[in-house]
């Protein structure tokens, strides 16, 4: 029987591209000398797609009991300014091997799987591979950056019983990075 496992997933969120690009449709107009004088200036701002994923929490799988799989999850809120879909890319920090692994230093690693759910549709993620419009559509919340205190997605990790039982004793940890991008 394997010793206890204490697994920690740490996650971070990435904010989508945010840039203001100068844009001047026409030049300011200067006033003329008179009993009143009027001048005008133009203002312009380009707001590109803005996204933010919030509400993520670390996933602590606890100590392995010796039987069954180990699983945990975190809900989140994905926001996009305005209408439009987004794509998600979930990347594991890797163990000795790249991908969805948690590791115990350089000694051992345990593979895990990730299921990304937006709304009610779940899809198995491949580390570092954009999910595109799968599940389609992935529409973010466009009215509140925090989904009004709620959530609209879930990310779940799972370690199979076989993988857990095969793992040497130790504390395993890894990092999941979730990148959301506008479509």
């Amino acid at each position, binding site marked *: 029987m394997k010793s206890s496992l204490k697994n920690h997933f740490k996650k971070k969120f990435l904010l989508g591209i945010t840039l203001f690009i100068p844009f*001047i449709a026409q030049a*300011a107009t200067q006033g003329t000398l008179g*009993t009143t004088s*009027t001048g005008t200036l*133009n203002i312009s701002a380009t707001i590109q797609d803005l996204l933010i994923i919030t509400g993520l929490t670390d996933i602590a799988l606890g100590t392995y009991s010796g039987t069954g799989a180990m699983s945990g999850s975190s809900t989140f809120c994905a926001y996009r300014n*305005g209408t439009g879909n987004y794509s998600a890319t979930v990347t594991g920090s890797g163990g000795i091997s790249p991908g969805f692994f948690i590791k115990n230093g350089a000694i051992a690693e345990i593979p895990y799987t990730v299921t990304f759910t937006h709304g009610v549709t779940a899809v198995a993620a491949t580390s570092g591979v954009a999910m595109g419009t799968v599940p389609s559509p992935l529409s973010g919340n466009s009215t509140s950056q925090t989904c009004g205190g709620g959530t609209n997605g879930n990310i779940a990790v799972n370690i199979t019983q076989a993988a857990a039982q095969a793992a040497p004793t130790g504390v395993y940890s890894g990092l999941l990075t979730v990148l959301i991008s506008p479509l």
Partner: protein
Amino acid sequence: MRKAIFTKSLKIALCLSIFVFSQSTFALIALRSWDTGKTIDFNDGLDWPDTNNNVSLSIEFCVISRIGNNTTGTPTNYAIKVGTVNPYSISRGTLPDLPISIEYSEKPSLGFETLTPNVYTSQTHLGKIRCNAGVDPDNAILRLSIQNADLVAAAFGTYTRVFVVTVIGGTGAETRSANLTVRLIIQPLMKITQINDIIFSSWDQINPLIGSDTFCVFRNGAGDYTVNARGSGAGFAFTLNSGASLLPYTLTWNGVAMTANVTSGPKTGAWTVGTTCNGGANNNVTLALTISAPALAAATQAIYTGTVTLILSPL
């Protein structure tokens, strides 16, 4: 709309004459219609100033210079001068004088010559034997001009000067003089220049977005002014827009918050020497525009544009 050129003609009908007897004949030099003085008003009935042009005023009159009577006499030459101050100017108390130029020409054939203060022209201008009003056309004209640059540089107020017009002729020694009062009212004027569009280059996704422009507010002479700022939103609201999507902003004028389409209280510190604050070196007003971070974060992705109109009025 102001008139492109301000030119007026005035005819003055009075008669002033000198009778000089020279043996069997007599000579006469006279300025018709002028010996009681006349006020020439540059502003008379017109929306002055036309700030893009010089202003000028022409005064036509009749000069008698003859030997003999008004039916059988012989016309003789005369000379004319205009005096009082050198150089010619009109004055507003202790403020700097406003330069003015005076030219003279015979009529109807025009050939203006610039007069030198208190200096006669050559005595080569042919007078008339009579100047009966309504019968004998004018034969002389004075043209008074003020350069646009001098007008623009002058402080507001009422400028006046009494000039003395003198002719000499007849037998060659007789003179007649008359007063000519020139008046010009310059209203309080303003000009806003050195304005630039406000450009946003980046946003740190945390702090409000603040853009500003510093420009020149000129007033011709000391005094306060007001400003009315109008955005391009509904009811002149301070909003940028992309279609129906709005992005609100706030404005400050030298640090003081502005309300859309509400005339401000008195503003001080207008530049009074040259209309462009030395080409911007002495710009005196900073307009700051702020878009709050929540407004930015909540805005739909788009290109937002808007216009701020600033209307200045002297107090």
